[in-house]
């Protein structure tokens, strides 16, 4: 028995060590130093909630926070709806289903740096096909600089992730295929049409999958640094700034470490609140 105990510890050790290095020490550091004045090369000194005060008075931070919240809401609603509709169509198992499932996944498979680069070029005002196609269809002087025009930049950035709901779709499809055949059949015998079948029978049964998908969609909005760096870089002004990019800039361009970690704390809190809310809305802990 004693030997086994030793092995248990040894088997857990690498995982725990890696976890501590990557998550635990760092998370503690984020919280602790968010209350400190800490710049590159300088001493760390405690200064209470100064960083937070500074944050909530700074336009950069407030617009990053606002944009981030808007993106979370859009992603938890429209994006999830796309995925749900896609899943309901594809799960009818037509000949084309497999092909569409594969293709829809592509934007989620490649590096999002590459995806950002792809859109940066697609929407390029000089040679990008989007503007060229609009010009081809008659609007000769159509020349929108998507990522640099303050009126459309937010929209342009949003469409680099909003339509690509393959993961939501995947979760829903998996759950749909687990529904026993009898339930939809009984509904059809009772005279339900396909729309009623979807809305009253299938969607409520896959509530948990939709909830999980919504959480993933919402929290993915707390990770979008790469796409922004590749496309608008937060601009013009702060029009497309989000928290991850702001953290990156505060830490590695302004070298204000304490402030960057205060932003990190806010990012973590925004994530926790989103997860909590979505859990509540979808009553994910209740049985179906």
């Amino acid at each position, binding site marked *: 028995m004693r030997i086994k105990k030793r092995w248990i510890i040894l088997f857990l050790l690498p995982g725990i060590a*890696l976890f501590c290095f990557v998550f635990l020490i760092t998370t503690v550091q984020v919280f602790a130093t968010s209350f400190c004045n800490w710049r590159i090369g300088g001493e760390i000194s405690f200064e209470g909630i100064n960083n937070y005060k500074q944050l909530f008075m700074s336009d950069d931070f407030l617009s990053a926070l606002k944009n981030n919240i808007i993106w979370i809401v859009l992603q938890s609603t429209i994006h999830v709806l796309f995925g749900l509709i896609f899943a309901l169509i594809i799960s009818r198992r037509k000949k084309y289903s497999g092909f569409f499932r594969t293709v829809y996944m592509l934007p989620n498979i490649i590096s999002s740096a590459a995806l950002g680069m792809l859109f940066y*070029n697609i929407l390029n005002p000089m040679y990008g096909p989007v503007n060229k196609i609009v010009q081809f269809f008659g609007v000769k002087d159509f020349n929108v600089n998507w990522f640099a025009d303050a009126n459309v930049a937010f929209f342009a950035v949003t469409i680099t992730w909003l339509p690509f709901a393959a993961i939501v779709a*995947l979760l829903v499809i998996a759950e749909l295929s687990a529904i026993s055949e009898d339930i939809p059949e009984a509904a059809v015998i009772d005279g339900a049409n396909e729309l009623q079948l979807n809305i009253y029978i299938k969607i409520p049964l896959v509530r948990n999958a939709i909830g999980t998908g919504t959480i993933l969609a919402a929290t993915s909005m707390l990770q979008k640094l790469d796409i922004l760096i590749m496309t608008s870089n937060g601009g013009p002004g702060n029009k497309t700034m989000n928290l*991850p990019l702001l953290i990156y800039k505060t830490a590695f361009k302004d070298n204000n470490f304490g402030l960057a970690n205060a932003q990190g704390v806010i990012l973590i809190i925004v994530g926790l609140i989103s997860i909590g809310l979505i859990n509540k809305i979808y009553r*994910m802990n209740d049985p179906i």
Partner: protein
Amino acid sequence: MKVCKKILVKILIFFFLAVTLLVTLGPFLWVLFASFQTNKEILDFTLGFPSGVQIKNYTTAFQLAPIVRYYFNSIFVTFFGVTINLIAMGMAAYVLSRFQFRGQNLIRLLFSMGLLIPGAALLLPLYTSVSAVGLYDSMWGLIIVYVGFGIPQSLFIISSYYKTIPKEMEESAYLDGAGFVRTYITIIMPLARPSFATAGVMQFLLCWNEFQFALTLTTGDRSRTLPIALYYFKSSFASDYGAMFAAIVLVSLPSIIVYIILQKYVVTGMVAGAVKG
């Protein structure tokens, strides 16, 4: 009336799928075609097949940026990022799903807590930690970070598979006098191969595609990975469109190939890895 409605639904579905296809596949095909075109052809927007397939853009891309070096780095980082993650999490998942001991639930909780922390919040602390142990601008620094970020997902995928393996399998091995480690390596690991494949593919995608830590934990060409090559093109060689497109293709292709070949595992992994946050 009913027929009308049916046709309308069909049209709507067709429209939805057509738009989906256009926005997902369209950009890929355009970049692929454009990567074989000359700068002039790109500016004139000649849709369709390039005038003659020329690989000049690809050779230029290789000349402009140290893509070969970045490829090597990406392969190195991904190989060790996947292997170490699978070894460490395979072991941890085994004891967590097979044995009862004090602190078990705490460890499980701790590991899944990783899902609640957005990576971007840890950009700076990981930079300081990695620098503190002397691994800044080293591929090993990246490897450790990627192995760590894959913990929750791999643990969940592998341990839920272990639970489906009947206990009798190891009990008979123990009776035959096999030790703890030997039982794990010769009985459990081979049986759990599919879950290692699933977790491995997911971990591959994580390591191969990751951008933000590759950007902040390295500097210079010595240890930068492929996604950073794109950043390089965007900031320095943005006027050589063809080469830029070639670079996009070169970066994306491995992920797409792995996905097409191992689609079954990717799909399982995405569903299984979506642990309730």
